[in-house]
């Protein structure tokens, strides 16, 4: 992963502006942020505060309009489209609020997808995807398509997909936004487990309950960081079938 001396994420004066001239919207207004390896960071803020934009920029899904962003020491602005694709594939793992699974495709094949772009040898595809699905507690749902899975199960498939290439950082945008409280607890427990294994996790949420499970809470307002608090995380209830 990374040596302790290099932060996973380091930004200086990060701006993201949509549109131009009078109609320009500044989603980010000079964000300075450093995240070390092994943190579990919750980004909070009201809607429209720019918290999702920040996550997308950190996750290389979006490019900053101005400012510097170093991911594991690499200057992201200098990377080509192919190098960015490689980083998204190898270093980062995404979890979306709406799961973003391929429809009519089994859980196994959904988890295999990032490995196809990584060039993983064929004989390793199914075993590694199976292992990832077991890790999120879906070992018995390999052949289920998203339509046959509950919301919580779909999100676990998405987490397995984010995990399968063994990323340094997992970025999750409102991962529990579509889930009920029991399922939310299960997903949070899963994130805490992964965090315990050394993966850096950044999740965006607007629920204080969810943020309470993080080691650090960032509050974003009007495109800038309004507060940055380190805390002792609350333990999620371990109701998941282990």
């Amino acid at each position, binding site marked *: 992963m990374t040596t302790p001396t290099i932060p996973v994420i380091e930004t200086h004066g990060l701006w993201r502006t949509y549109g131009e001239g009078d109609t320009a919207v500044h989603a980010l207004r000079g964000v300075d942020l450093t995240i070390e390896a092994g943190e579990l960071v919750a980004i909070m803020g009201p809607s429209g505060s720019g918290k999702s934009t920040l996550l997308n920029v950190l996750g290389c899904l979006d490019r900053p309009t101005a400012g510097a962003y170093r991911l594991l020491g690499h200057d992201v602005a200098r990377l080509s489209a192919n190098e960015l694709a490689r980083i998204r594939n190898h270093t980062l793992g995404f979890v979306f609020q709406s799961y*973003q699974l391929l429809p*009519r495709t089994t859980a196994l*094949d959904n988890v295999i997808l990032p490995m196809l772009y*990584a060039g993983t040898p064929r004989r390793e595809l199914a075993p590694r995807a199976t292992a990832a699905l077991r890790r999120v507690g879906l070992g018995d749902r390999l052949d289920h398509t998203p339509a046959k899975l509950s919301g919580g199960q779909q999100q676990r498939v998405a987490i397995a997909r984010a995990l399968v290439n063994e990323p340094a950082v997992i970025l999750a945008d409102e991962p529990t936004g579509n889930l009920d409280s029991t399922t939310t607890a299960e997903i949070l427990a899963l994130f805490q487990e992964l965090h315990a294994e050394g993966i850096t996790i950044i999740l965006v949420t607007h629920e204080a309950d969810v943020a309470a499970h993080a080691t650090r809470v960032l509050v974003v307002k009007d495109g800038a960081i309004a507060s940055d608090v380190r805390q002792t995380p609350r333990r999620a209830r371990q109701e998941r079938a282990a």
Partner: protein
Amino acid sequence: MSLWRTLLVAIAALGRTKARSLLTVLGVIIGVGAVIAMVSIGEGAKRKVAGTFQSMGTSTLVVSSGSSQSGGARGGAGSQPTLTWDDLEAIRELPEVAWAAPQLRSNQQVLSEGANWQTQVYGTQPEWFEIRDWEVTSGERLTAADVASARKVAVIGTTVVTNLFGDGADPVGETIRIGKVPFVITGVLAKKGTSAMGSDNDDVIVIPSSTFTTKVSGGGGKYLAGQILVAAADPERTAPAVRAIGELLRTRHRLRDGQDDDFSVRDLAAIAAAMQESTATITSLLAGVALVSLIVGGIGIMNIMLVSVTERTREIGLRMALGARPRDVLTQFLIEAIVLSVIGGLLGIAAGFGAATYMAKAFGFPMLIQTEIVALAVGVSAGVGVVFGVYPARKASLLEPISALRAE
């Protein structure tokens, strides 16, 4: 990602969007099928017309007695006999002429032992078979000796055989009566089918011209009461023969300059060419319809491709978020478009062949499929499919992944 792996990904993606894939394939099928069927029908019709004239002998000229020009009222061609047997011999001497034969015609009641039938009796000479390019399937053609000694022999067409002796009988050696005169059958003509004008070529009896003028009908004198069929020496160029015959007959009939011909020379090749030209017009009309089908099919393919790929912008965004390079996305959509085009193209060719075969059977055309047309139809449909399958995918792959993911 390797090409093989991209192919698997593309096929899996096609399987996920079955309805759209099916519609795209359908567009290609219709585009390709319609073009192939249309052009093949046009070509078949053209070839059929050409074939019909072939059966008449396209290099044949027909020399008829012309109308008399007395007092302004003109009779029809042949109403006044002006051709003589000596004219026939003179025509035979022309270097531009390969063969010439008289063709005297009479409608006669013909009897066999058990049946009777009314048919066309031709009095002619052996050259006639060469001019009409007509073989016998049984027995032999008329000979010079038959003509010289006015033998009572007949070569008969298959329709006459069927009506007098039954289907498939071999009547060579049998005797029939034409009017009251008995004739021995010495040959059966090969089947020719329907003529260009719609009459039955095979409903015919051929006898020596000498026998015809003495036993069946009159006309044994100086004048030849019928037509002279001529085959030009050069079958590709009949015009010199037409001109030579015209000059010869004007001289022989002592016509002055400015005086109208008292004979006519009809060039079947020229008539055939005119007929073929009109079918060619129909062919180009059908080709136009085919072109429109191709354009309509192409626009259909374009629409479905544009819509389906644009709808899949989110999928493209997701794939990029998971690590797909722009090139991986493009290759995937290129392969998808190619797979759809190839499947559609093959099925379209099959559909086109099917339609063409059915039409060919229904209208009695020969079945003609041109490789260039198949290639053009498949090429255009596939080209449109690929361009409009890849273009929106390329656009999406150039977006930031988050914009593609959030696209509606």
